[in-house]
């Protein structure tokens, strides 16, 4: 219990530090949001009004305390550009990002994990020799380039998939669920997912392979062999299950990173997600929205770490009882 408590306290501290750094970072960056309104009819008086409206005319420490106070109440403030509450804006695009990220992650980790296990099993075979460079290459390809390539082939070339967005223009749906469950939505989701999967599969594949190789040297595997179990059972039931643990951590952390890190894929495929909103906000000095988006990402990342730690504690009691 005290282990969980300690980890929780740690998490809160990390989040506070991140919030503080974010707050300072945006305000110390050159340029302020009023420059977006420069226009022949824009006067110095109006500029003051804009700054006042955003609370930017107050001293920095005062802004900081207001920011922390609001944050403690779960309020992220009003976006400077949209003039709407940040939370609502983020929630409106979060489902798209979650769907894209989770679908891609599940596919990448399922395929990658299985493939990694296979590579370990067939160690030294032609399959392994040929596959590892391919896995490494797809992992190393820049995702915007890969995305454009996928678009060029499957959308513009073969015409199998749409070139962007989340729905065909002007499509009508009874509800948000109808929309998300529609075939049209899936078709639009296909290419961004494919790109992300190609980009993500390398880590689980290689991780799984090396874990398997390690596990396969353990005594219980030898024991299973001695019992005369079929090779497939040994691999899937015994070795793979034990090699899965680090994959779980990698999954949790990747999820956290991807929530806001899909910027490139979201832009290439015009996918309306959180990453794109974040980049727009940063480029336009929309502090509250950018802070909010970064905080959500940080929160998910830290929280997923926390969850992974808890899992470790449960699965391997040595972790929880350790001195750390």
């Amino acid at each position, binding site marked *: 219990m005290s282990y969980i408590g300690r980890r929780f306290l740690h998490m809160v501290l990390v989040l506070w530090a991140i919030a503080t750094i974010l707050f300072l970072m945006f305000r110390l*960056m*050159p*340029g*302020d949001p009023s*420059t*977006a*309104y*420069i*226009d*022949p*009819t*824009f*006067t*110095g*008086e*109006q*500029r003051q*009004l*804009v700054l006042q*409206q955003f609370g930017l005319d107050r001293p920095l420490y005062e802004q900081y305390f207001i920011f922390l106070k609001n944050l403690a109440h779960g309020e992220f403030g*009003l976006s400077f*550009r*949209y*003039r*709407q509450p940040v939370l609502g804006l983020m929630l*409106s*695009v979060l489902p798209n990002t979650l769907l894209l990220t989770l679908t891609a992650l599940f596919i990448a980790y399922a395929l990658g994990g299985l493939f990694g296990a296979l590579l370990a099993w067939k160690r030294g075979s032609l399959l392994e020799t040929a596959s590892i460079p391919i896995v490494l290459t797809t992992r190393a390809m820049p995702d915007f380039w890969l995305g*454009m390539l996928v*678009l060029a082939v499957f*959308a*513009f070339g073969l*015409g199998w998939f*749409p*070139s*962007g*967005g*989340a*729905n*065909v*223009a*002007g499509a009508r749906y009874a509800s948000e669920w109808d929309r998300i469950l529609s075939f049209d939505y899936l078709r639009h989701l296909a290419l961004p997912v494919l790109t992300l999967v190609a980009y993500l599969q390398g880590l689980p594949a290689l991780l799984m392979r090396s874990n398997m190789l390690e596990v396969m040297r353990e005594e219980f595997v030898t024991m299973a062999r001695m019992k005369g179990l079929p090779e497939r059972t040994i691999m899937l039931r015994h070795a793979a299950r034990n090699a899965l643990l680090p994959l779980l951590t990698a999954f949790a952390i990747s999820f956290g990173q991807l929530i806001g890190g899909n910027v490139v894929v*979201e*832009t*290439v*495929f*015009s996918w*309306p997600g959180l990453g*794109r*909103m974040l980049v*727009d906000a940063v480029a*336009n*000095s929309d502090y509250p929205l950018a802070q909010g988006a970064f905080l959500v990402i940080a929160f998910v990342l830290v929280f997923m770490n926390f969850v992974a730690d808890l899992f470790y504690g449960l699965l391997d009691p040595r972790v929880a009882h350790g001195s750390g």
Partner: protein
Amino acid sequence: MHPLTLSRRALLASVASTALVAPVLAAGDPGDPIRKLVILSAAQASDPEEFQAAQLLAQAWRQLGLDIEVRGMPRPQLADLVWNTRDKWDMTMWRMVGRPERSDPDEFAYNLFNPATAATGYDFIGYMNPDYMKLADAQRAELDKEKRKQILYKVQDAINEDQPYIFLVYPKNVLAYDKNIWKQQSVIEQSGIGIRNFWTFLRAEPLTSQKDMICNATEAMLALNPLYISGAIDSWLTEIIWDRLMRMGPDGLPIPWAAEKVIQVDPLTVDCVLRPGQKWHDGKPMTTDDVVFSFKAPAMADKSPMYKPFVASIAEVSATDDKTVRFKLKAPSAAFAASTLAKINLIPKHVWEPILTDLMNKPQNAETVQEEHPVGSGPYKVNRFKFTEEIVLDANKDYWETPKPDRVIMRIITNTSAALGMLPKGEINFLTDYRGDPKLLAELAKQNPNIEVVSTIDMGFRFLAPNQRRPPFSDPAFRRALSLATNRQMMAAAAWNGFAVPANSIISPALKFWSKPGIDDIKMDMEAAKKILKDAGYILVDGKLHYPAGVKETIAVN
């Protein structure tokens, strides 16, 4: 070796100057060498045209004996530096963008060089010329169009004479559509704006069963709010959802619209007679009360700060009968039609009065209001919107001129190349926002004969702004020399890939009625530029330009 020579020369110079402390400076002795001058520009990645133009300027002006550096930086930082520290920079690349209401030259002529705004407003270059302001005031007060045009010719001559800006080019807007879907003659090109405009949205005739105009925007929309000027993309849609008393016509001149007639009763009085039978999208009739309210709302307690300047010229607005609204102005204003009657969105009083009343006791202003179902009286009604994804508008069948398309669908396509690919595939059928290389679009049209590309000279312009608070830019002769040493033709061809034309005025040739013929025909002449500098007393010493005799360099390079 080099640094040594330099320091030796510096030493000699300092010895020489100490030797000459008191004695007379012979006339013709050069002044101080001109410091290194810095051109600020957007970073290359964010605006390659602008950055390249700055490089071309630097190259050309070095031939005059100047030491010039181009400094690229992110745009927000650039704007902050230029706007908020007005004496801390030499020159900056800058631009004015076109908007329908800017088809009237008043906004530029009056505001850009107005000394009253030099401290914190738009005269950020610190240009002060009382003679110019007399002309700017005169054109605003002259209600006779022909006479006003003559004054605006003088305005353009004065600018040409003084070169407060070094104008570079008027860029071209390049857009495209599928002419198998939209009848070519019905897609209207608005001067200085292009084919994406109110008239096309209203009158483009569908040729097939595809009656949806599917458009693209490169950035997310921010709001659909008739009291918030939230951005260019938003304005394309707000102007077809909310109607206006007048509209800027395809030729750039205002024409009566929701007002059937606009009558100048006397220099200070304008009557607008409403077209009968107009309705709001919720079915309620539009009354003179609504119209009066629409022109009062922007000035109510600073709740709509961005529209407020556009009603500042109104002293009083009232209904004289059930179809006439009378405007009393504070001063005669030639631009009233364009900058107020064709700018202010008509809003229903029954929707906005309660909203504004509710806001009176709150810190928020009307810009924070997003109606779930926006109500206007324009040719399109809002069906639904997701600002980062798609906005769907339905034709308003009750409108007095039935829109030809069934729907206008604005898709947010962040990937410019993808938008290009979508056009021949029919995923969009009107490319309303294109920020890529115009050559790529031309090539696409070559491969797909059904795609029609239309390029339009913009009413906006690109320029270099010299800071006239700092010598040598305070000297008109120096600015004239810089201007003459600028090769605008080459700049249009090289930096803008041919999609721009040379500029030398605040009034683009797109605005045919107001633009002075020939004003933009300015050719590079390096010899003439050198002669102007020489005549003004600037002296070349060892290839480096010095100030006229007796002038000291007072500013440190930063």
